[in-house]
């Protein structure tokens, strides 16, 4: 009997192939899900285009997201704000008609959150806006997006990069951002 490993490897080869292929498949599957179904651009109940509003018509962010500079939450405008303009403008477009339907039924529009943080995170928009952080730093170039897409990872490490770069006061203390 020899001590060569070669026969053994030959015997094990089919099983090893199957395991390797399965592992590779898992990676591919994971990647495919992340790449093709990232969930960063959900389909909203109304195909609202930030490109048109913020990009083409140059409406400032805080015209609609009025709370951003004074509250922890940026606030999504109520329908009455939409209707403020669209009661007159572009009333016959199908998407606008949907908005007007919601308005007539006095139902809220169930927007889907694109930029969502876990519940244990305390993110005050106010502090960031008042510190001069551009909306686009976290939200990406929204004014060029027809469908809002999350571009930033919104992960803790990513937050901290910025906090460190800007030397935020107690910016790396856990309880500055966690609750």
């Amino acid at each position: 009997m020899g001590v060569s490993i070669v026969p053994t490897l030959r015997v094990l080869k089919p099983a090893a192939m199957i395991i390797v292929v399965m592992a590779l498949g898992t990676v591919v599957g994971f990647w495919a899900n992340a790449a093709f179904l990232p969930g960063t651009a959900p389909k909203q109940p109304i195909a609202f285009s930030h490109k048109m509003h913020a990009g083409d018509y140059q409406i400032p962010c805080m015209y609609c997201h009025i709370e951003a500079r004074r509250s922890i939450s940026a606030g999504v405008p109520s329908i009455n704000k939409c209707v403020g303009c669209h009661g007159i403008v572009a009333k016959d477009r199908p998407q606008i008609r949907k908005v007007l339907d919601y308005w007539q039924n006095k139902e809220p529009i169930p927007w889907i959150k694109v930029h969502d943080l876990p519940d244990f995170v305390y993110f005050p928009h106010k502090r960031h806006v008042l510190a001069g952080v551009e909306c686009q730093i976290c939200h990406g170039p929204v004014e060029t997006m027809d469908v809002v897409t999350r571009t930033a990872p919104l992960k803790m490490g990513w937050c901290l990069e910025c906090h460190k770069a800007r030397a935020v006061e107690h910016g790396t203390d856990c309880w500055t951002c966690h609750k």
Partner: protein
Amino acid sequence: MSVVDRFSESWRKYRKPGYYEDFDYAWTMTIDLDRCNGCEACVTACQAENNLPIVGEEDIARGRQMQWIRIERYWDGEYPNARLSFIPMLCQHCDAAPCETVCPVSATYHNQDGLNVQVYNRCIGTRSCAVYCPYEVRYFNYSNHHWPAPLDQQLNPDVSVREKGVMEKCTFCIQRIRQAKDHAKDDGRRRVRDGEVQPACVQTCPTEALVFGDRNDPDSQVSRSLNDPRAYRVLDELNTRPSVVYLKKVVTDGG
């Protein structure tokens, strides 16, 4: 700055005795046992403010109550000379906290306000902090808690709802402190004014037995209270240096 530099710097900082005196604030509470009448308004205030769950009869019977501030009661003597004393017990925010050294993941640490804080989402649930705490003020989530609708509408959005397997405890209502600092910043003030922030228990105490403030500020209410000759700390011999200071109960014989 490299990781090593950062580490050695903070090591030097935290090894220095009395390092907390350089902190922005040193939040402190005094509790006057001569005023406290054990009414437990503080307990409910804390429950409402901090999303404390209703753990239910069965779990309390097994010793799993969750009240970040509790009233301990001690009898002295027997009838007819029995006397009952109350003492509110909450996280003492020790400057030399045993719990901080033992947590393997640093989920509990001392922050720049002199607070002993607990980061819920970092906690892995070893429960060693509760073993090390001589005051027994750390509470563990033995299961997920539920609020039957619509009780969940009461939950305070400024405070997390803790999940199973997480240790929690009194934070001195850190969410209020954070908001007060935020206000100070908005007003262009560098510091929070004395009395601008009060934890829920202090705010509601009907006998005003609880006083809260910054002991680094010599003029604050709490600093004056600390100078009271009745001041003492519970289990002082353990040298945990608590930030909660009690004022002795006055016992007289005859009017």
